[in-house]
């Protein structure tokens, strides 16, 4: 093997021009006859490509009793097709110099490869194959579901903060499927079988329920031609009806306690908040983004300053909000009380910060600071090909368009101090709130020191 020299890329005029015109201005799309949309963004800074296939099927499309099946099927997607035997998929991508993985969320399941650009056709070939030719066998499934249960133990069962988040979701939503954890309840995993996974695949894996995102050192027309060649022959399917399952109005604050072995308490507060449905008409999600930025978006944001530095109520504190989702949204505040302080103390501190925000609003300086972060982040995000593909996928999977990405940025830049105050007042209300607290339990008989001296084996 011989390495090829990479093309020197100390060029910039084109990149800067693209930047001035909006980061998504260079994006192109085509829809194949079978309904598969293909979205391509050329980025020629390095000779690599990110290829992603997003299916509009996530845990929110599951039904009770088989929670976690979207994610279990994701695991099975690496287990062989009529044409590619189990494990071969990953071997071929690795041999092409690629990295690959997949992830499942509430709204979607997505698969990706990062490869040297010459390997792109193989990626389309392999993904197209498993879009319609997957085999889900009993013996493969019975082993892989054990892996999934180990994953649940690792990520949730033994992680107190994850248990708290899981419980908060289950309590905040009575009716909406967002109440179920993406990875599934352990008992559902224990009782899941290969037929559950197979029927999930049969229902949702279809070109008309998917879209492809390619970002990197490619020519868009060539990608469209490849897509037509590999994905084009797959037939569209009639998709199941999706029921709205709207969440009934919350009537009063909800509170819960999670006990788990831990040293420190933890507080998670979630308020039901709107998400972006119409990038032109909605304004509240943009104001909420700025609000969260003021609270926790930069080196001098309010929560850290007030609660970690000044009052020392918390050792860690944070705020979060995702404006794009198929289902209902939530704004979160969270934190770990510092030694000697309780979750109740921290909740009072967080509430005081919210009250201050509602009473006094945010300053123009703070607004400008959050917007400066935003402007800079638009440049920084382009350092990552994969990050750009992710952003497009997130928007599209939420029912928005990649075209909305730049529009949303412009709208966020136009948010006023009064709008921030207005959403703080309207959405951070107790009747929208669920509060979850970790009540740390002693580590039991487990002493902090080794139980036994080292022994030779």
């Amino acid at each position, binding site marked *: 093997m011989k390495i090829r020299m990479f093309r020197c890329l100390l060029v910039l005029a084109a990149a800067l021009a693209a930047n001035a015109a909006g980061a998504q201005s260079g994006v192109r799309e085509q829809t194949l006859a079978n309904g598969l949309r293909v979205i391509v963004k050329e980025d020629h800074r390095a000779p690599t490509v990110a290829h992603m296939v997003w299916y509009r099927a996530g845990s929110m499309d599951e039904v009770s009793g088989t929670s976690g099946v979207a994610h279990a099927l994701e695991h099975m997607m690496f287990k062989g097709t009529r044409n590619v035997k189990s494990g071969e998929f990953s071997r071929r991508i690795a041999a092409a110099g690629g990295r690959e993985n997949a992830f499942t969320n509430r709204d979607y399941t997505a698969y990706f490869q990062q490869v040297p650009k010459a390997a792109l056709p193989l990626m389309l070939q392999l993904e197209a194959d498993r879009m319609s030719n997957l085999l889900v066998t009993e013996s493969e499934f019975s082993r892989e579901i054990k892996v999934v249960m180990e994953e649940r133990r690792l990520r949730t069962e033994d992680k107190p903060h994850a248990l708290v988040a899981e419980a908060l979701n289950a309590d905040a939503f009575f009716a909406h499927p967002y109440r179920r954890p993406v990875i599934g309840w352990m008992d559902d995993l224990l009782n899941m079988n290969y037929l559950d996974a197979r029927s999930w695949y049969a229902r949702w894996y279809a070109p008309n329920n998917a879209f492809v995102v390619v970002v990197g050192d490619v020519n868009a027309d060539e990608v469209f031609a490849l897509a037509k060649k590999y994905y084009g022959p797959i037939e569209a399917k009639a998709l199941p009806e999706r029921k709205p399952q709207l969440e009934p109005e919350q009537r009063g604050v909800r509170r819960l306690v999670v006990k788990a072995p831990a040293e*420190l308490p933890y507080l998670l507060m979630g308020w039901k908040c709107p998400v972006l449905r119409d990038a032109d008409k909605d304004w509240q999600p943009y104001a909420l983004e700025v609000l969260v930025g003021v609270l926790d978006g930069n080196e001098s944001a309010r929560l850290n300053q007030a609660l970690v530095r000044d009052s020392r109520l918390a050792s860690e504190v944070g705020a979060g909000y995702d404006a794009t989702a198929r289902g209902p949204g939530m704004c979160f505040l969270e934190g770990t009380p510092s030694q000697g302080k309780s979750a109740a103390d921290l909740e009072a501190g967080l509430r005081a910060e919210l009250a201050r925000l509602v009473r006094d609003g945010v300053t123009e300086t703070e607004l400008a600071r959050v917007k400066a972060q935003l402007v800079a982040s638009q440049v920084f995000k382009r350092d990552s090909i994969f990050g750009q593909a992710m952003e497009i996928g997130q928007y599209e999977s939420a029912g928005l368009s990649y075209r909305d990405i730049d529009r949303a940025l412009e709208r966020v830049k136009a948010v006023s101090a009064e709008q921030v105050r207005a959403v703080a007042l309207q959405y951070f209300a107790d009747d929208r709130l669920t509060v979850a607290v970790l009540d740390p339990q002693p580590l039991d008989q487990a002493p902090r020191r080794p139980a036994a001296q080292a022994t030779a084996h």
Partner: protein
Amino acid sequence: MLKRIVMQAGNPLWLMAAAALWMAACAAQAALPIQHWISASGARVYFVESHGLPMLDINVDFDAGGRRVPADRAGLGGLTQSLIKAGSTAHSEEEIGRRIADVGAQLGGEVDRDRAGVSLRTLSSERERVQAVAAFAEILQKPAFPEAAFAREKARLADAVRENEARPDAVADKAFYRLLYGAHPYALAPEAETVARIERADVENFYRANYVASRAVLTIIGDADRTLAARIAEQLTAGLPRASQAPPALPPVIQPAKQTLRIESPASQSHILIGLPAIARGDPDYFPLLVGNYALGGGGFVSRLYLEVREKRGYAYSVYSYFLPLAQEGPLEIGLQTKKQQSEEALARVRAVLDEFLAGGPSAAEIKAAKQNLVGGFALRIDSNRKLLQQVALIGFYQLPLTWLDDFAGRVDKVSAAEIRAAFARRVRPEHLVTVIVGSGEK
């Protein structure tokens, strides 16, 4: 390690971490003209000019990681690095934070056993760059270590130490390094008692002794020309403390005796680590070990450990092996987590895979697959400024050849089966293998 991840909705911190990870994962560079010079104050400077995006990344590493910390003050290295950001003699922590945030810049940095780093990412446009670099220069060279911030960060560190005692992964990691390195400072991790002992003067003294110009390594990647990079290098290092003496020599790493340590835990899974001190940076065995380890447990979804432990038996979600070269012999670490009831079977399987690998080495097909991935995928190691910064900083700190990245694929390609077997035989002697099991199935 990311392996077929599931995103846990509703945990904002987790989502942010994931976003950061994705952002850290990609985009841009070329066969690498790394420019290197020494600043007037004696700092080593490494610069890659790249105008693809109007941004600049700067990282300053010092030989001020865990290995320079006195054993009875473990935690001092991380505490000092975090307090660098807590304001300068001219501006308070809050003012520094505002000056950085007002121009959209970001501060970062990491501390490990060798290095303590502080980094800045900023737009390269003049107003933004000038303000961000000025604030960065101030905290690097005139940190105030205010009393209040010291008390706060010390308390936060103490909280983190406590919380880690309930985390099986953290307990395993700490025990693993302690057994591997014994009396060597690589064994150290902060403890409640060592943190309690740290005083503000320790921080000041540690800074003055270790954040010194002649042992600083400055890496600059991005939209600047050589003249500007040189100016920034002077601005960031001219006022650093000067070394009064060479750092004390560290003891050699001594291979541990083979042993197994079991630690109880209330968790549902056992966290298992196996390894030994293996290789220092710059050692020629690096490439044979890299290629061999790809077959053993480094190669994502195709390694022996992955196939035997996860694919065939469903014992674990994550199972891996890697070599982490440090200034002195860094570890080989093999790790997995599995439900307690089957931990002995899983452990036996991992040991069998390792034994077989050490006895026979990788097959010709495995070596070919490893080279295909490592050589073919080389571009993915440097296809963003972020990744490039990490690579070049490593080259700078450990004084690897400037052509290290250019030579990488060729070096990988030249590795032979015999070299892999020989390197593993030299570096991974079973009589020194340490095993840590947190949450044992055995009572």
